[in-house]
Structures are given as structure tokens and as C-alpha cells.
């Protein structure tokens, strides 16, 4: 859907935020499922960070066993409905499909969505809580990693309590991914699936403010830190303190939790950064009626962290990409409205530690970009204070863990998800967070089982 400005505004904005991609019809799903070879020892399973038995769930679609299919998916990935929409499938399951070598890969993501959509629509409860084992776990953060850990622990018989700072659980899936790619209802369904296993979710409860870390460590057999990441840091340029400069995370979140704002209609928007959130902020701006939207990125398409499908989508939405461009300062008028963004051209120099080539300023290449809104999307900062309150070792907010046990420097505190991502550790994908949540659950179970057998 490439909407010109007029039709974007004439359409009511609500409609712009409905899911872009239609799901497969029953006929399409059956035909696609029938095309799957049902490989033995299939590479797609290996390519899925959560190890979903993909040939099995597809076979179940083909046989008409949709409940079984949804269960096969959600068993391995408690946020499998969201992942069917947001996973970079061409880099994961679909990228490894053997049919890449003969015809064309199976639409695994779309089939996964078909099966989970069926379960959502038919209000299926897919799992039952395990028999209680008398142990309790506190999970801080109800995002993909926290929910995943909670689900696995509940199946294993733990009494789980999730402490969620926001009004709703679901984390990134609920607040951080644009509605037209991931409707909130999908994330809520995943939350309900976890809740239905007798998991208590205390929303609007910020650990460190409403409840103290020590209380959790003292009162629960284990604590899982799955707090993700915080706000987008400042750019460090002149003029960015004014109202017209926004945090991309807050910006996207507002489109998911409040009535859609009409204040962006006709505005010129610059988004700084070229990661997943930058794309979301840019396409959100388009659908909120912005006149023009530019992504300003100091490196090139090669180095950006957005996925190819996101890049493609943004281009189709009419987002302009300004490569090798860095913001220098924001020029304001007398009323502190943004007039323009002064940028400077960059060049790529030597590769830095992370392997990406370091951008270097091109002298006297300054130019002005006339914009009304600037959105910061240059990554996220960390909840360092909370990490400190727990007294955990960390590197610039990336919590240090034992790679095998997911234990932090406090052995009864485990960590997973974005809070351990960075500094060469982990992956930033939702699906990786889900897998880490599972692994943390197994490690907790292993630890408590070992303790139990020692005491016997």
C-alpha cells in the first residue's frame, strides 16, 4: 500500500494503522502447506532460534489439525503469533528452506500466522499449568523474554509472578512494534495464554519504585530480570531539547496506547537512525499523515540494522533514505519550533571494533534539511539504575551473565532478553528473547531440582 498524502489523510488514520498484510486464506494456506516437503531433520527447525518443529506444524495445517499446529508453534515459542509477523524469516527459517535450492521457499511465517490466527480467533487455550511444585519465581518485565520464561516455568509447576511497569504486558510486542505490522490484540492473546496458566501479572508495577529488588530476591526462589531496554538516548546536538524532538520508542508507543494523533498531518519528519525502530517510526509518520519522511543515517544501507523486508516496506511507503548523513544541530525559530535540521555528509573510514566501517565527517559538507519533527531512533539506553539496585555486574547496562546458566552475579537472579543483549552478547530479535526466556526457565528448574535432590 503506497498511499499518497491526500488519500492518507482522507482515509481516517485508524485505517492506516490496521494490519497491512492480509493473512493467508484457508485455500492459500492449504496449498502452501501441501507444498512443504516435510523434510527430515529439517534445516528450518535449526534456523529457528526457538527450534519450532516447522515441518510438523505445517503438516498439521495440511491435515486440518489447526489446534495441534498452533500448539506445536506456541510450545516452542510462547510469542509465536507475534514472531510470525515480526521475525526476519528470510534470514531464519525461510532462508534455510531447502526449496531455496529448487523452487521457492515455503512461506513459513505466513503459515505460522495462519495457525496462530486460527487459535486466536477460536479462543483456544493451548496449554495447562503443571502441578504446583511449591516454588515461586518473580519475573521482572512482561515482554517476550519474561513471558516466555513465565510460560515455561508455569508448565513446570512454578508459581510465577510477573512485575510489569506498563499498563499492559507484552513489552515490545505490545508497545514497540507498529500496529500495522503487529496488532496489539495478537500480543494481548499471547499474554492471556501465559496468564491462563495461573501466572500473576502485576501491571503498573515498577520494580525499584513500587517494590524493592531486595523484597523479590528474598521472597522468591528465583528472580528473572527481563526488563529490556529503556528510552532512546539524546543525539548530543544543539536544539534537541525542544518538544518537536521525539523519542522513537515513545512515538511508536503513543500510536499503540492512545487515540491516533492528527498533529503530524502535513508535517516534514526526519528520523535519525536506521534500525528496526527507525523504520517503524518512519512508516508510522507516513501513516500519521506526514508530508515527507526522511531517514537520516550516518552510514549506508550496507551497515543499517533494519531487516531487508523492513527497508523494502519503508521504501514502498515513500520514506526517503539519506545515507552517509549525520545530524549536526537543530535550528529553531523564535517560538522554539523546529525550522530545519542541519546535517553533515559522512564518509566511511576504517572498520571499527564491531566490524562496521566508522563514519567520518566530510569537511564543509553541511546542508539544511527543512523539517518540523525530528525523531531519535539511535538505539536504546539501559535501566542502569535498576541493575545497580540489584547490585548486578554489567557492562554499560548490559547485564553480565554466565553464558550457560543465564545467572547474573547474583546467583538467584537470572537475566534474559534485551537486558543481556549487546557488547557482543546475544541477539536483539524477539524470537531470541523468547528462546532465552525458555532457557532461563530450564536453568532455574535445573537449579531448584538439584537443590531439592541435595536436601533429600
Amino acid at each position, binding site marked *: 500500500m503506497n498511499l499518497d498524502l491526500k488519500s492518507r489523510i482522507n482515509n481516517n488514520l485508524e485505517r492506516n494503522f490496521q494490519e497491512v498484510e492480509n493473512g493467508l486464506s484457508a485455500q492459500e494456506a492449504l496449498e502452501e*502447506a*501441501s507444498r512443504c*516437503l516435510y*523434510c*527430515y531433520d*529439517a*534445516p528450518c527447525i535449526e534456523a529457528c532460534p526457538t527450534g519450532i518443529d516447522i515441518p510438523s506444524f505445517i503438516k498439521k495445517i*495440511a491435515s486440518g489439525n489447526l489446534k495441534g499446529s498452533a500448539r506445536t508453534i506456541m510450545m516452542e515459542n510462547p510469542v509465536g503469533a507475534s514472531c510470525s509477523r515480526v521475525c526476519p524469516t528470510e534470514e531464519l527459517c525461510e532462508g534455510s528452506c*531447502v526449496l531455496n*535450492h529448487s523452487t521457492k521457499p515455503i512461506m513459513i511465517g505466513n503459515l505460522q500466522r495462519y495457525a496462530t490466527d486460527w487459535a486466536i480467533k477460536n479462543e483456544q487455550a493451548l496449554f495447562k499449568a503443571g502441578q504446583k511444585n511449591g516454588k515461586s519465581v518473580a519475573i521482572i518485565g512482561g515482554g517476550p523474554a519474561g513471558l516466555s520464561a513465565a510460560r515455561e516455568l508455569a508448565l513446570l509447576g512454578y508459581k510465577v509472578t510477573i512485575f510489569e511497569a506498563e499498563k499492559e504486558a507484552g513489552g515490545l510486542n505490545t508497545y514497540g512494534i507498529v500496529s500495522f505490522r503487529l496488532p496489539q490484540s495478537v500480543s494481548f492473546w499471547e499474554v492471556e495464554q501465559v496468564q491462563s496458566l495461573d501466572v500473576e501479572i502485576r501491571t503498573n508495577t515498577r520494580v525499584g519504585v513500587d517494590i524493592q529488588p531486595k523484597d523479590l530476591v528474598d521472597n522468591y526462589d528465583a528472580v528473572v530480570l527481563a526488563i529490556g531496554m529503556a528510552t532512546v538516548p539524546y543525539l548530543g546536538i544543539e536544539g534537541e531539547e525542544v518538544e518537536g524532538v521525539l523519542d522513537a520508542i515513545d512515538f511508536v508507543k503513543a500510536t499503540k496506547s492512545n487515540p491516533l494523533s492528527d498533529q503530524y498531518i502535513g508535517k516534514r519528519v526526519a528520523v535519525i537512525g536506521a534500525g528496526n525502530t527507525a523504520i517503524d517510526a518512519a512508516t508510522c509518520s507516513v501513516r500519521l499523515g506526514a508530508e515527507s519522511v526522511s531517514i537520516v543515517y550516518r552510514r549506508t544501507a550496507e551497515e543499517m540494522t533494519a531487516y531487508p523486508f523492513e527497508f523494502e516496506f519503508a521504501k514502498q511507503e515513500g520514506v526517503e533514505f539519506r545515507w552517509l548523513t549525520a545530524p549536526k544541530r537543530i535550528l529553531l525559530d523564535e517560538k522554539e519550533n523546529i525550522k530545519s535540521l542541519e546535517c553533515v555528509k559522512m564518509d566511511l573510514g576504517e572498520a571499527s571494533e564491531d566490524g562496521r566501517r566508522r563514519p567520518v565527517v566530510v569537511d564543509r559538507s553541511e546542508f539544511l534539511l527543512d523539517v518540523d519533527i525530528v525523531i531519535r531512533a539511535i538505539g536504546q539506553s539501559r535501566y542502569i539504575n535498576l541493575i545497580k539496585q540489584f547490585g548486578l555486574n554489567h557492562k554499560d547496562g548490559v547485564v553480565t551473565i554466565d553464558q550457560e546458566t543465564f545467572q547474573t552475579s547474583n546467583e538467584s537472579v537470572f537475566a534474559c532478553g534485551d537486558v543481556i543483549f549487546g557488547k557482543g552478547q546475544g541477539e536483539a530479535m524477539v524470537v531470541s528473547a523468547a528462546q532465552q526466556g525458555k532457557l532461563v526457565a530450564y536453568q532455574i528448574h535445573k537449579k531448584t531440582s538439584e537443590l531439592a535432590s541435595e536436601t533429600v
Partner: protein
Amino acid sequence: MVDLRTNLAGITSPNPFWLASAPPTNSGYQVQRAFEAGWGGAVWKTLGDPILNVSSRFAAVSFNGQRIAGFNNIELITDRPLEVNLKEIAETKKRFPNHTIVASLMVEPNQDKWHEIVKQVEAVGVDGLELNFGCPHGMAERGMGSASGQIPELVEKQTYWVKEVAQTPVIVKLTPNITDITITAEAAVKGGANAVSMINTINSLAGVDIDSWNTIPHVAGKGAHGGYCGPAVKPIALNMVADCARNPLIHVPISGMGGVSDWKNAVEFMLMGASNVQVCTAAMHHGFRIVEDMIDGLSNYLEEKGLFSVSELVGRSVQKYSDWGDLDLNHKVVARINTDTCINCNKCHIACEDTSHQCIDMLKDPAGNKYLQVREEDCVGCNLCSIVCPVDGAIDMVELQTELPRMSWNERQAIISGIDKTVKA
């Protein structure tokens, strides 16, 4: 241009593609549309005492989302008055004098009845007669169709009665609902049949609705067996055609049918001894226009093979079809996997491992790339791996040279009994 004309026991046709006696040949309107589309002949939907039909008649079997892998019907013979059919046959024949019209007939096993109907249909100018001893449903409950076609004496006797008065060639259409179709084919020949055609439909129940628990199809909650046809029955039909073709007692031409869906299927039936083919399900699936590719594909095939006439195909594979006891026990083929073409779905491995002879290994080369390899010494040449393989050319069945001379089971047994005799003597 290759010559597609065929001659089945004196019945000539512009090409080997006939519509079988079935719903597509129910009326003059339909048969004329078929001839316009290019069909060489049509066997008119079976004439007899008009009957009543039920509503809800057809059902089909889908396979992996593919529609009409098999087709099932409980429709009976024509439900239109004989005089209407005869009038339309005459009109059609007049409009298409070079196309073939064969009248399918079914009456009670009664000499006078057969004489009467044969005279009536020959009077309107049909090119031949096909006796329907095959329909397995409905009419069989009244002693007709497959009920008489399953009793060799009745086949012979009724054929004989028809031949007493028939002026045109008589084809006897046989039922596959019998242990050995050559028995009834022989009976037809003994009765004087000029040709046999096969197969009629196979007794079938298309399915059961797992929600309502009704049969598929059902008539007001009740079902009855139907006749099965379509692509799924082709191997059964082909075997029956071949069995008749290689039987010296059945020395009459064969009209082959049962799942013929395209020109390749037609070539197979003709190679196995059919002089022409009859088609129904494929036309019911796609309409009469499919004959265009049948004609075109067959012509191109014959040209490519350097043949001038379609008749040159007939029976060319019959001598290659024999009994198991004549197969060479010393012949050896093994599977070979072409790793360049293989896409590593591992279906061959698991099929062999779980259900055959455990001789395909999943290996890794020094660089860590996965590949599959056949342990040829353990491979029995069953073909399963190459059958399940989804990629053309990834698995070849390769013939191995052996030192041993050809030796079939029959030859082996003959030698052993020779030795036994010598020993005893």
C-alpha cells in the same frame, strides 16, 4: 503431419480420443460441442430403459490440496427417453459424419430386449455398439451392468445375442470389479465381440464426512457405493489393459480407459495395447477443450519419435510386460545421489531408514556441509528414495554390471527340477 486416425475393429476415427459413455455424452448438444472441440469420437451415454436418478451424485477425492485425484459417481444410465437420444444421435451423426458415435447399451439379460435395442440404435446410423457390462452401481442391483459383467457366461451369452443382429462392430465394456478381467474378456471374445473396452468404474465410497458422519456423497443422509474413476485408477486400468493385450485368447482390439488425463497417459495405454482411449473425468474436470493439447501433444510426441501413425504405437510395450517369474533375478540397480542437485531435504534418508533397507547415510564433509550417500552394497534397488525425492535428477537408479548371467525364477526352477530328475534317475 503424423496420422492420428485410428481403426478399432473397423470403427474408424479421426483421432484416438473418444469421450467415454458418461455424463459428458448425455446429449446431442454436448457431443456436438465435443466434436467441435476436436474429440475423435464419443460413446453415447448408456441407452436402455430410462431410469430415475438421485440428486447428489458425484464426489471426488482431493490429495494434498489437488482436486479430483479420484472421482466417484452414483449416476445411472441415461434418464432421457430413448427416442430423444436416437433423434439426437442421428442429428449429430449428420452434422459430424467423420466423427465416431458409438452407442452404449444396457438392457436386461434377455435376447429379445438386446435384439430390439440393437436394431433401434443401428437404424439411426451409429458406427458401433458398446455393451455396458460394467457399471457397478444402481443398475447392477437390477441384474444389469457389472452384475452381468461379473458372470462370464452372461457376458458371452449377451454378446452372442447382440452379434446375432448387429451390423456394426460390437465392443464389450468390462468391469474391473472382478478378480481376473481376462476371464470375462475371453467370454466376450467367445461371444463374438469385435473389441473389448476397459475399465468401467471400480466400486467405491468416496469418503465419510467426519463432522456429520454422513457418507460422501449422501442422498438425504444415506449413501450407496458408487463407481470410482479418474487419475487414481489409471494403474489399475493399465494393468488390466496389458493383461488382456498379452493374452493370446483375447485377440481383439482394446479400447483403453481409466484415468486417462492427457496425451502421455494415452500413449501409455496405447503402448500397452489399446487401439484408442476413452476419457471422462479429465473432461469433467476441465471441459472438452483439453482435447486440443491431447491431440497436439500426441502429434508432437509421434514426430519426435519418428513415427508416422499413431497406430504404430499400439502394443509396443506389451511384450515387455510379463510375469514376475520371468524377471531376471541377477539384474542389479542401486541408487546414486547427485550431491550437486540434492537439496538435502533428507526424505530419502528417512524413507530408507524407517521403511526400507537402511542404506542412505547422512554425512558431513570436512567443511561441515551435510550430504547424503548410498551404501551401494546394502542397496537393494527398491527405488523408494528416488520416488520420495522431490527434485528431478537428484537420485539416479544406476544399473550395475554383474558377472552373473540372466536367470529368472522360472528358469531357476526349471534347472533345479532338471537336477532333481537327474539325481533321481
